[in-house]
């Protein structure tokens, strides 16, 4: 439950509205997208996709392919996290730009990059490689930010005396990492990795089924299997595909994350022995396995020892404190070049934006409003059912024991996997795509809300509940004076994530190919997809930038303020 809170408990620094660093970051993103669009104009007009087999025997391979993409992106994320977080925590000059950068990046709707990344990569390398790489980059961008924040936050919150102990006992950087920094961050890193994997599936499915116009960017995998099955109306294959996906997600949870969590209990910082923590059958199996023990004492331990010995010979001993970082002329030179590059890029990007006609700008404005309306609708529907249900689940043990596993498995299926199925279901209704889009947003976002509400409801102190019961408050009065205020911070935290997810979903939700026919509805997501399909690059740039700017602005102007109120006023302490 607490994993969602962790993400926002740690990942939402209450800084001022904007700083110059934010402006640089936004300009940087604009230039980055411009360069992508510029590259993209060289992409082929028609791209043929892979042939997707619906045979059940193909499913294991597809599952392995999808999981491998996730694993590659995750490995990349971990590497990035360790290096980026370490640099930001150790160098105060770097920290000043690196942390605002993270903050903006994590609120950007990642899927809006997908068309630009796909087109530009396929222009510079072979299509099959480009599509694989684009999916990995996309998953990477969805996984990495919260992990990096968690690592950075851990590094900067290590108790001072522990840090001083490593200095006074002359630990070199490797020993410090091994004995202090990694163990200290372990639990938070594992929780955030789990979050990242859950989010990653959503984007992987989206990347695997992406097709616009004559450009078929699909990838052989579980996502495209489901889409193909839905297109053919093959219910048996749809069910098989979903079953495989659930199996993979549940297996990863049972065989990887649970054991890791149990193992990581030892890194709890509390100096008191608490109650028995979580359990994992697979961990027990591993723990008592002869093979595993042999491996750890004959491979892992000698490896660790030789690393230790190497580090003693080659690594210097330092104090381990954050350095102020010297401002050298090299640093100044590099910053000057970066700023000059950004300025030139901005100039060129503006030139391209000037080609966007007034009518197209109007369409963008209308699209933003239409998508905003859909996001709001999805959020309202989600709130309407998750608050009562979550409050009930959070306060009643019996209900929770019975329903929670069901909810967790349902929530673990990425909503994008359902999208083709969803389209199939509402195909004959009026405004089918409109309904499907809102439904997809809803499916992608309601779980965040539900989990947060459950966590909030179970955190209401028991004595407060007794008090309000003893005062003889009516049900409604109890809700108004106790439950809603107590849930408020959790609802806000959930809503922030939920609305971010909904904006993302609009890219795949507002434009689709149904039975060989292209259908779309008004919205910024569909505008981005159509610009990609028709090769209207100025429009692609303008609409992608508009979407990013809108989401960042909504976060800053609306959510952050409400979040601050929630954090200040409705805390249960």
């Amino acid at each position, binding site marked *: 439950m607490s994993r969602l809170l962790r993400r926002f408990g740690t990942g939402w620094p209450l800084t001022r509205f904007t700083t110059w660093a934010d402006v640089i970051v936004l300009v940087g993103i604009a230039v980055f997208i411009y360069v992508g669009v510029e590259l993209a104009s060289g992409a082929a007009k028609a791209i043929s996709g892979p042939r997707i087999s619906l045979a059940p025997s193909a499913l294991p391979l597809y599952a392995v392919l999808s999981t491998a993409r996730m694993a590659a992106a995750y490995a990349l994320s971990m590497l990035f996290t360790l290096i980026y977080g370490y640099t930001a925590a150790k160098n105060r000059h770097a920290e000043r730009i690196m942390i605002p950068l993270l903050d903006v990046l994590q609120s950007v709707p990642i899927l809006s990059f997908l068309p630009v990344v796909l087109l530009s990569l396929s222009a510079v390398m072979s299509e099959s490689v480009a599509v694989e790489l684009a999916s990995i980059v996309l998953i990477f961008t969805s996984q990495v930010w919260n992990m990096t924040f968690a690592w950075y936050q851990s590094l900067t919150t290590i*108790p001072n*005396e*522990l840090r*001083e*102990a490593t*200095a*006074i*006992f*002359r*630990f*070199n950087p490797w*020993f410090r990492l091994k*004995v*202090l920094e990694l*163990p200290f961050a372990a639990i938070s890193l594992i929780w955030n990795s789990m979050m990242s994997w859950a989010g990653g599936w959503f984007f992987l499915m989206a990347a695997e089924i992406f097709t616009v116009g004559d450009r078929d960017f699909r990838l052989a995998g579980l996502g495209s299997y489901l889409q193909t099955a839905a297109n053919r109306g093959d219910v048996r294959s749809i069910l098989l595909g979903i079953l495989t996906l659930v199996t993979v997600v549940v297996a990863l949870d049972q065989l990887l994350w649970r054991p890791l969590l149990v193992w990581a209990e*030892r*890194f*709890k*910082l*509390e*100096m*008191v*022995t608490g109650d028995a923590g979580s359990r994992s059958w697979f961990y027990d199996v591993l723990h008592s396995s002869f093979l595993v023990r042999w491996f750890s004492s004959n491979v892992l331990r000698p490896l660790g020892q030789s690393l*230790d*010995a190497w580090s*003693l010979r080659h690594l210097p*001993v*330092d*104090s381990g404190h954050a350095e102020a970082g010297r401002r050298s002329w090299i640093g100044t030179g590099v910053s000057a070049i970066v700023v000059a590059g950004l300025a030139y890029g901005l100039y060129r990007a503006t030139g391209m934006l000037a080609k966007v006609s007034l009518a197209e700008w109007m369409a963008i404005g209308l699209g933003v409003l239409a998508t905003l309306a859909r996001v709001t609708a999805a959020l309202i529907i989600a709130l309407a059912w998750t608050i009562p249900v979550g409050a009930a689940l959070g306060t009643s043990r019996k209900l929770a024991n019975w329903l929670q596993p069901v909810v967790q498995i349902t929530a673990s299926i990425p909503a994008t996997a359902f999208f083709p199925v969803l389209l199939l279901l509402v195909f004959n209704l009026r405004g089918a795509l409109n309904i499907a889009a809102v439904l997809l947003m809803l499916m992608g976002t309601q779980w965040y809300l539900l989990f947060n509400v459950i966590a909030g409801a179970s955190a209401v102190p028991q004595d407060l509940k007794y008090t309000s019961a003893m005062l003889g408050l009516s049900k409604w009065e109890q809700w108004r004076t106790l439950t809603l205020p107590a849930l408020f911070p959790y609802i806000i935290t959930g809503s922030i994530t939920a609305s971010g997810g909904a904006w993302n979903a609009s890219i795949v939700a507002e434009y689709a190919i149904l039975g060989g026919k292209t259908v779309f509805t008004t919205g910024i997501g569909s505008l981005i997809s159509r610009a990609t399909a028709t090769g209207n690059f100025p429009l692609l740039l303008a609409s992608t930038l508009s979407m990013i700017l809108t989401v960042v602005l909504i976060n800053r102007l609306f959510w952050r303020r409400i979040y601050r109120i929630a954090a*200040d*006023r409705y805390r249960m302490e």
Partner: protein
Amino acid sequence: MTKNQLVTLQDITQKYHTGRKEFVAVSGVNLTVSEGEYVALLGPSGCGKSTLLRIITGLQRPSNGKVLYRGRPVVGVNPCATIVFQTFALFPWLTVQQNVEVALKARGVPVDERTHRALELLDRVGLDGFETAYPRELSGGMRQKVGFARAMAVEPELLCLDEPFSALDVLSAESLRGELLELWLNGGIPTKAILMVTHNIEEAVFMADRIIVMDKDPGRVVADVIVDLPHPRQQKSTEFAAIVDQVYATLAGQTQPEQVEIGSAPGEPGRTRALPDITIDDLTGVLERLLEMPGHTVDIFRLAEELRADSDSLLRLTEAAELLGFATLAQGDITLTPLGETFAEARILARKEIFATRIRRLPLFRWLLRMLDAADTHRLERDVVRAALLLDFPPEEANRQLDLIIEWGRYAELLEYDDSSEMIFQEASAAVAGGA
């Protein structure tokens, strides 16, 4: 320079910058520690004694001055020194034995030797049988024993103790002190000198050969007291009491004329007197106890014994009594003033009135009440007051001062505070009285 000098500090000054403001944590400290000495660094919280310890071990570079070790300048962390930390600083994910061994491992001591040394040290501090336990399974006293074992494992010449007993309960602290002294006096450890930071006067007199007494605002050395009593020292003996009394007298100081005592307002020239960190209940408790004393006067260290208070918090209370004009201090004695007597005898409402008239005289309150009067609807945001206090205090101290101002002001009914809007304000009636 004699041969056996270990540490030499020459004119050490440590400054901090917050924003454009500069604060002096330690000012012009000269000090030597020689082989065979057990030196205590004693002073109230905020006097910079822990900072000095970090400068001596090389964890921190001073803004000014030189640190010499055996006559040579210290560059980086001094490899001949270790620290036993106040909060133990053990790695919670390592066992007792691993916690000791890791210090040796980081210095490249081979496996067999480090295991042997770790087990022997754990045995010596009385932890055999607990080698495979995790720190969370141990009591505070046992954790600190691990801290000692780890520090001694690297065979330091200079053993630094940073308030090592202050996080322990009274009995564990007592027994651990005895055990450390035994190791030290019997030459059971290769340590050449011990430097202990403490705010506990009795502890310093009980253990050390020399007490360097420090005071705050700015942190500086005010006395160097030699303790030449034989071990084991009898805490009840007159010689012991005489030294404790002497140190109390040095630390408590002498009551100055009121203008000097109360200082000046924030932003004005001169020193802004910080409010001592006390609760009003404790203050009235001390004053009531003084009322029972013959002649309303008593040795401060006797008072400490009577109240079973530790010296640091008692000295803050006597400072508060002095600041408010309820008591005077001279030569280590505290005497109730007539005003103090009236206060101690009064009922609660009268007490509040006396307290209010007293704190109105303090520049800090005069300044705040003036600001409140000038403000719209007599309300001020907490952050506004905090920003003004930041001109005179470092950030942490500014927060503490603000909390104290609010607590004292609320008790005196001079001001009110709303926590959810973070507003300091005056009720209408109080505002009128304040203007009069």
